[in-house]
């Protein structure tokens, strides 16, 4: 199904646009999440058909066209957890910066952190 391919691509580049354009750190992270989700939907959509069933039960091999591919699902669980872990670390650092500099703007935070840094 081409729509399961094209629409994630559009969302992926929406995220890319946000990353290239946004001045706000938190929006950048949100756009990163957008990209991650787009990739995951794309990879799971590879075996998409209308009314596809989850790969659970016995005798799956007799209904090969009717079930979703299990391998991408196992991979994507890993990808989601990795994405979560990275996002958690991102937010830890962002909260640190935001509490220190009271700003969520890339340029401001950069200038402020350079400034506070040179003093040391």
């Amino acid at each position, binding site marked *: 199904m081409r729509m399961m391919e094209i629409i994630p691509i559009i969302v*992926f580049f929406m995220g*890319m646009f946000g*990353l*290239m*354009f*946004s*001045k706000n*750190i938190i929006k*950048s*992270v949100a756009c*990163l999440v957008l*990209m*991650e989700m787009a*990739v995951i939907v*794309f*990879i799971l959509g*590879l075996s998409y058909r209308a009314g596809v069933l989850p790969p659970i039960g016995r005798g799956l091999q007799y209904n090969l066209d009717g079930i979703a591919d299990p*391998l*991408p699902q196992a*991979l994507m669980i*890993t*990808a989601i957890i*990795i994405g979560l*872990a*990275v996002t958690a*670390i*991102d937010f830890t*650092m*962002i909260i*640190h*910066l935001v509490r220190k500099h009271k700003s969520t703007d*890339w*340029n401001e*935070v*950069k200038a402020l*952190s*350079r400034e506070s*840094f040179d003093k*040391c």
Partner: protein
Amino acid sequence: MLTYFVLAPIVIAVFLYLFSSNKTNRIIAIVMQAIITGFALYLLLQTRQQGEILTFVGNYQGLLGVVLKADMMAASFVLLTALLFLVVAIYSLHEENSKLFWLLMFIWEGLLIGIFLSRDFFNVFVLAEVATVVVAVLIMYDKGRRNMFDGLVFLMANTVAIQFYLFGIGYVYMLTGVLDMQAATDILATLPRENLILPYALMMTAIAFKAAVIPMYSWLPKVQGIPRAPDAVAALLSGLHVKSAIFLFIRFQDVFAPVASTDLFLVIGLITAIVGVVMAVSQVDIKLLLAYSSTAQIGLIIAGLSIDDPYSHAGSLYHMISHALYKVALFLIAGVLSGMYGTRDMRKIKGIFKKDKFIGIAIVLALLGITGAPLFNGNVSKYFIMSGADYVVNSLMILINLGTILVAIKFGAMLFGTPDESYVGKKTDKSSDVAIYALCLMCFAGGIFGEELMDFLFNAPFQMSFYGFIEKIIILSASWVVGLVVYKYVFADNKNQAFFGRIRAIDLNFRGICVSIGAFFVVALAVVGFLS
């Protein structure tokens, strides 16, 4: 068997964290690193005998599970990884690092070995992602003065790049139905060429980002320049971490052989090298100078790998190892120097010879390595890289080497003069001296036994020709003369600081890095899709 090469450091890491104190863990760390190095050597010997060692994780037949593969190249890099971590462990002996440091270092080692041994696309993704996070924590290890901002940029930009890789995995899986690199290579070779363009561009974007080539090089100096990041981490970043990306670059060029574009990466490599050299010579910060010089050498390696010639290919492989050795040595020396003088500003560090002869001699040895002087490892690798290049590329590479010599002269200028009051006088410890000297001696041995080592590590039985060698020496001496003259009139006594300051100020912000990732992707797609 290969599984345990990856898991052992991780298990050791957790054991050290749980069951040892801050005092004993460095000793245990060194012993463990020595054992791992021994096993890595054994692996290399085994690989030389058997040609290729495969491990099917979990004994699942076919391609159901993950497959690990050790060929000569992978085994050599595993040995290099173990060796450098051993050296770094010895270097860090005098510092009382917390448990966390050793935990992360051992995990990092396991992950790098994993990347070298893995034959699975998705496995590489997982390993690279964890390694990125480990590096991000390690560079902000010092709580007092860490630079959270640069760490954030590093982590997020890496995550953006790796999304392209994941997209690429999706397409490879769609086209081939497998995730194993070997099987994918075989299947991709039978497919129509236009189907491979997109996955190739997607994956190469991520790999090129990780390898820090133009236009996405800026994260590497940024990370290495972070003050108070442990010296060992900055050293291993350009010594090993980036090498793992170049290793993947080699692997993926083979996987996508039908569409792989060597011209694109030849040009990109040369531009990276030139930009790196120009940026390096204009730095005043000792670590940034080394970081940009790494960028230049990475460019040289990528260019060498893209020349269609077995000599250049083997030379580039060997250059990866020689570069790792002398760059780690120089970074460790830089760490010692900034401890001795209390500053990283090269203008304030003077008269090393007068203060500490040992370090001075080590600097001379490492610099001879980096410039490719005869009898040093840089000479052998650069000789072989250049021997396959055509006339234009060759002259460009001589120019790049001239830049490297300028970098070396700039670094070497610190040896002379009289130290001013900024000299703190913190003596170096025996352990760090031992580590640095071990690396310098390896550089020397790598030059004397260069051909034998290339044969031993990569199965590349090439010989240097006598006339080529003489020619090389003449070019090198001429380069030294030109370099000294240029240094005298352009750099000495801090001339032209305004101009160099402007070059130093060139910096991409996070949005700029994202744009550069996108630009690389578009260019790669266009070159592969439309031009060839």
